[in-house]
C-alpha cells in the first residue's frame, strides 16, 4: 500500500470539497531525500509536481542527482532550469520551514495527514479517510 493512490482517490471522490496541502519531510538519514524534495518542487515550478512525485516513488531509492535529471527529461521539463533549481537548492528555505513545522507539531512519521485538524499517521486505506472526511463534511 502506498499513500499516493489513496490521496488521488480522495481528490477524485471529493472534487471541490477537499483541498490538499503537501508539506515536505525529507528523512534526515536518507542520502537523497533532500534533493528529491527539491526535485519535486522544481518540477512543480514547471507544472509537473504530481508526475515527478509519482516517478520519485516508483524509482526510489535511485534518487541521486543524475537520476533526477533523467526523470526530468522523461517528463519533458526544461532541463537547464530544473538542474539549476536543484543545484542551487532553490526551495531549501521552504523545505526547512516544513521541517520546522513538523518538529513543532511533534510529527516524525511519514506520511502523516491532518484532516481539519484530525491526525492520521501512516498509510491507511481509503475507507479510513472516507470516514473522517464524511464526518467533517457533515459537521460543517
Amino acid at each position, binding site marked *: *500500500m502506498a499513500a499516493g493512490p489513496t490521496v488521488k482517490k480522495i481528490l477524485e471522490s471529493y472534487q471541490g470539497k477537499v483541498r490538499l496541502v503537501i508539506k515536505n519531510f525529507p*528523512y*534526515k*538519514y*536518507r542520502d537523497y531525500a533532500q534533493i528529491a524534495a527539491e526535485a519535486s518542487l522544481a518540477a512543480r515550478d514547471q507544472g509537473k509536481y504530481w508526475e515527478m512525485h509519482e516517478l520519485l516513488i516508483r524509482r526510489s531509492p535511485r534518487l541521486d542527482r543524475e537520476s533526477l535529471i533523467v526523470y526530468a527529461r522523461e517528463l519533458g521539463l526544461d532541463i537547464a532550469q530544473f538542474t539549476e533549481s536543484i543545484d542551487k537548492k532553490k526551495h531549501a528555505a521552504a523545505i526547512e520551514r516544513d521541517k520546522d513545522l513538523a518538529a513543532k507539531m511533534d510529527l*516524525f*512519521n*511519514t506520511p502523516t495527514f491532518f484532516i481539519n485538524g484530525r491526525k492520521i*499517521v*501512516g*498509510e*491507511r*486505506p481509503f*475507507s*479510513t479517510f472516507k470516514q473522517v472526511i464524511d464526518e467533517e463534511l457533515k459537521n460543517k
Partner: protein
Amino acid sequence: MFSKFFVIVSLFILIWTGFPAFAGTLVPITSVPVPEQNPQTPEKIELGKKLFFDRRLSGDGTMSCSTCHDPDHAFTDGLDISLSYPTTRNWRNSPTLVNVAFQKFLFHDGRALTLEDQALFPMMSSFEMNRNLDFVEEVIRTVPEYVEAFQKVFNGEPNRERMAMAISAFERTLLSRNTPLERHLKGDKKALSDEARKGLAIFTQKGKCVDCHFGVSLSDDKFYALNVPENPEHQTDPRIAATRRFVAKVYHFEEYRTLTEDPGRYLITKDKKDWKAFRTPTLLEIAKTGPYMHNGIFATLDEVIDFFDRGGGRGNTILKPLKLTDKEKRYLKTFLAEALSGESEIFEYPKVP
C-alpha cells in the same frame, strides 16, 4: 490422605494463577499480577510512562513505543501491518497493550515471557525502533531528569533492565475499566443489552469462542494454527520479505532466504505443531483494536466472525464450521463490540524530559 492432597493442589492452583480461570469460565478483573522483582510504585509508573513516549528510545529519534501503541487507537496503531522504522516495513499487526498485564506470553509468537523481557525487543529491532541498547543507556544517562528519577525509583543509574522494568510498570496500568461484561459477571443484570446477552450465549455455546477465549483477559495464552489467509503485501513488498528473512535468520531457520510465509510460533519452538501458530489474543476492547489477526488481514469484526464461522482457514485442524445464522452473527458481534469495551478515559500524556 486424599483430601489433604486435594487441598494442597487446590491451594497451589489458586496461588499460581492468582484467580482460578478454567476453560469456559469468564472472570472479571479483580487484581493485576505483578512480579515480585518489579513492584508497582507511582514514581516507577510515571517514569515508565515518560520512557514509553520518548523518541530517544529509537535510533533516529522518530519512534517511541507509543508510535505503534497509540492511546488513541486502544494502544495499537490501527493498521493491518504495524508502523515501522523509516525505510523498513514491519510484518505483523501491532497488538493492543490494554490488559497486557495478564498475558503469559508476549508477541504473536510468544517469544517473551514477561513484559520486562518484551520491552527491549522492539527497541533493538531493526524494523521497529532500531536502537542499540548500550547506546540508549548512555543517551538516557545524559538527561538529568531521568538520572534523578532512576535514582529515586531504583536507587541506581539508568540501565536497560531498569528502563524495561519502568515501562512494564506503566504497561501494567493499562486496563479495561468497567466493561459491561465485567458488570454482568459481578451481578448487574442490566449491564448487557438484549442483543449482547444473546451474543454472550453464542459466545459461550454454539460459537465455541469461550473454548479459547476465557479467563480475565479472554485468552487461553496458547498458540493455534488457524491458517489465517496471508496478507498479500507479504508477497509484494520487498521490505516485508527482508523483515521476514531477518527474523527467521535471527531464529536460526535454515531456509530463511527462501521463506515466503510467516512461520509463527515455529520460529521460537522449532516444533512442527507450531508451524504458523499464533497466540490467542485478548478480546477485550476488540471493537477498537482492528484490523485483526497477526497480519491484520481482516479489517472488520464481521470478517473475523465469518472466518470462524466457516471453520477457519483452509486445511486447519483446529476449527470446525459453526453454521451461525446471520442473526446469530449479529448478536455475537454486538456482544464483542458492546460488552467488551470499557469506559473511555481521557489519557494524560506525560511531559517527556
